[in-house]
């Protein structure tokens, strides 16, 4: 299995820049997700790694070997397009053996290798079955087996679970990650579903408009989003973003929300003090305090029970906010209440650049600082 290193990777289609000057290192054995909305450049990045798209400039290294100009077949990478693309007239055994047969691997060896991947994927009992007899999950396993049997240097997957229903998707997510834990294959996984990326990936690169905005482990993205876009894209519900303004006053720095009649809020401490001018205050739903004693007045618009907790939708002069509270929280739709922000659990953003100005206090330090422009 290989390390994949992208350096100054750039792809333009005429005027349109699909991927802009991207630097990423995907470690050997890592499950790495490219996450972003449609059109963000994640699939183009994946296709360049696979060799299906030629970069405009920049380099792609597999274990140090430059492959940007090498044709796809020679890169030894398995692109799992659509996990359902199997040959319906062949049985499971022959489907899995197909890539070996086309390479001229002798029959005995083929059988051995098929048996081995079938064992890893726990589908030995299905080898004689017809594809049409298989359930959705088993088909997916067979398609994976066919990709694995070539012993590729890395797996590339483009929304492989996209066509499945929610329940099946959760089961396959679990299975794909379980499989990864057993074989530790370098995997690059493209998705627009933040939940999928958070639950499966060792690290996630969030992309938007051709740029990698942040590449980090899931909880680092979650607690310390580097930009407003990441803050709003990751999390369900996403981070609350409140328009605010910094004031340098005689008594000290003051942070005020940009809404009529709202009290000053405590600001996270920044190394150089609070900048004067427009700011955005970001707070995760579970970090908002909700109760009549809290200072920002609000009305409960919706209160959703979810078994282990509740999600409140709150209308305040500073806009609509979502809060995650305990299942026993008394707030009901229509209630008047208050919202409080703990400055140690808040992030300030500069709205002109979109960049975060601080890290959440008490958040664990970054394990290592490489892997992306904002790392």
């Amino acid at each position, binding site marked *: 299995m290989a390390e994949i290193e992208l350096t100054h990777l750039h792809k333009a289609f005429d005027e349109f820049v699909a991927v802009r000057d991207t630097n990423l290192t995907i470690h050997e054995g890592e499950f790495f997700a490219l996450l972003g909305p449609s059109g963000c450049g994640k699939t183009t990045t994946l296709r360049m790694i696979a060799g299906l798209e030629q970069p405009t400039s920049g380099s792609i290294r597999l274990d140090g070997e430059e492959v940007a100009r090498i044709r796809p077949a020679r890169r030894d990478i398995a692109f799992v397009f659509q996990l359902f693309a199997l040959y319906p007239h062949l049985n499971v055994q022959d489907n899995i053996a197909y890539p070996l047969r086309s390479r001229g691997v002798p029959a005995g060896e083929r059988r051995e290798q098929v048996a081995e991947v079938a064992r890893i994927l726990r589908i030995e009992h299905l080898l004689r079955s017809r594809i049409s007899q298989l359930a959705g999950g088993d088909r997916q396993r067979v398609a994976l087996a066919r990709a694995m049997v070539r012993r590729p240097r890395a797996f590339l997957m483009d929304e492989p679970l996209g066509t499945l229903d*929610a*329940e099946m998707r959760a089961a396959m997510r*679990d299975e794909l*990650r*379980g499989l990864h*834990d057993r074989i530790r294959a370098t995997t690059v996984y493209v998705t627009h*579903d933040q*939940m999928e990326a*958070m*639950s499966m990936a060792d690290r996630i690169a969030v992309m938007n408009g051709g740029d990698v905005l942040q590449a980090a482990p*899931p*909880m680092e993205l*979650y*607690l310390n989003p580097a930009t407003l876009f990441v803050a709003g894209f*990751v*999390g*369900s*519900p*996403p981070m609350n973003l409140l328009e605010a303004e910094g004031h340098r006053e005689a008594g000290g720095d003051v942070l005020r929300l940009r809404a009529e009649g709202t009290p000053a809020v405590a600001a996270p401490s920044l190394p150089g003090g609070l900048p004067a001018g427009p700011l955005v205050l970001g707070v*995760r*739903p*579970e970090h908002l305090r909700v109760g009549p004693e809290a200072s920002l007045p609000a009305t409960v*618009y*919706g209160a*959703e*029970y*979810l*078994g*282990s*907790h509740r*999600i409140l*939708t709150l209308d305040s002069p500073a806009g609509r906010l979502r809060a*995650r509270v305990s*299942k026993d929280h008394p707030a009901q*739709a229509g209630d008047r209440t208050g919202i409080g922000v703990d400055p140690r659990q808040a992030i300030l953003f500069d709205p002109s650049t979109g960049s975060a100005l601080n890290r959440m206090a008490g958040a*664990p330090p970054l394990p290592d600082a490489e892997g992306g422009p904002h790392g």
Partner: protein
Amino acid sequence: MAEVRLENITKDFGRVRALEGLSFHIEDGEFFVLLGPTGAGKTTTLRTVAGLERPAAGRVLLGGEDATGWSPAQRDVAFVFQQYSLYPHLTVFENLAFPLRAPGKKLGAREIRRRVEEVAAKLRIESKLDNKATALSGGEMQRVSLGRALVREPACFLMDEPLSSLDAKLREGLRVELKHLQVELGATILYVTHDQVEAMTLADRVGVLVGGHLQQVGPPEEVYEYPDNLEVAQQMGHLPLNLFPVEEEAVRARGIDRIGVRAEHLRVLPEEQAGPDDLRAEVLRVERLGAEEVAFLRVGNRRLYAMGEEHGRFPDAGEVAVRVETDDSLAFDPSGRRLDRDPGGRGEAPPGGESPADAARRMARGLRD
């Protein structure tokens, strides 16, 4: 809006029985969700209320009147399909007026305008009446879609997974909007879905339907915390219920076959803090999802799920101790029925006996050996 009542509805398709003695009622102004897996009979129930299916036996009552023999048109119920099933080339006004221009209605232009404006005011979309449907936000489309049903002044709304095709973010937002709107309008809604999150968040009461049988009806909190049986426990909740088989004879003699514990109630402790009654489990994997973390655990060949809200609560790998808390366990008999059925009685030791959790702890010793 009106009360809806189903009495002993049975429905067969050929030799397959789709619904079996189905009875429930929806109060005027209530949001009722039928939750169940594919093939449970949810859509058949909806179509029976609408008059699109004839029951083999039983009655449908609308506003207290027996409507079993009525045609769909006579019933005045409003099906709401996908959010975006609006006519894109028409304005909001024309979309809302459309059902009123049906040949049978014979309403004058002034009456149509009056009704459309009244509904638009209720839905707070007055200012959008001249906009094309395509120029609306997701939430506004939902309002127009409901409004188009509302102008007909229906007895109730019938909704068949109206949010299922939308992406997660939009769905979340529209869910909150729909619930808010229903309360504001006092609408009677029968909503069917296989998504337990929708059922929990939208419903005043949920009915869990499995295999044509209504398993349990109640407010979401009650159905989640006090499921009548294992089917219901598995339908409600996004992680599988942890189930522990009971082997000890003294406990089995009291009819307890399995103990169930929700993922958020399974206590996970560092291995060195393990008490004599705790289970030892291997951590297979931890999903850190932001506000919550889910640990996938293994005891023998059994999978357990634990959910927590503090960051770093579960170690990434290795051994942990698992404890079943007294107050948060459910006891099931061999048929899967929950034993301590009345809310409030949960967790209390029956006279002369031990509580289900004590039983679980004792049972845990057996499981470990």
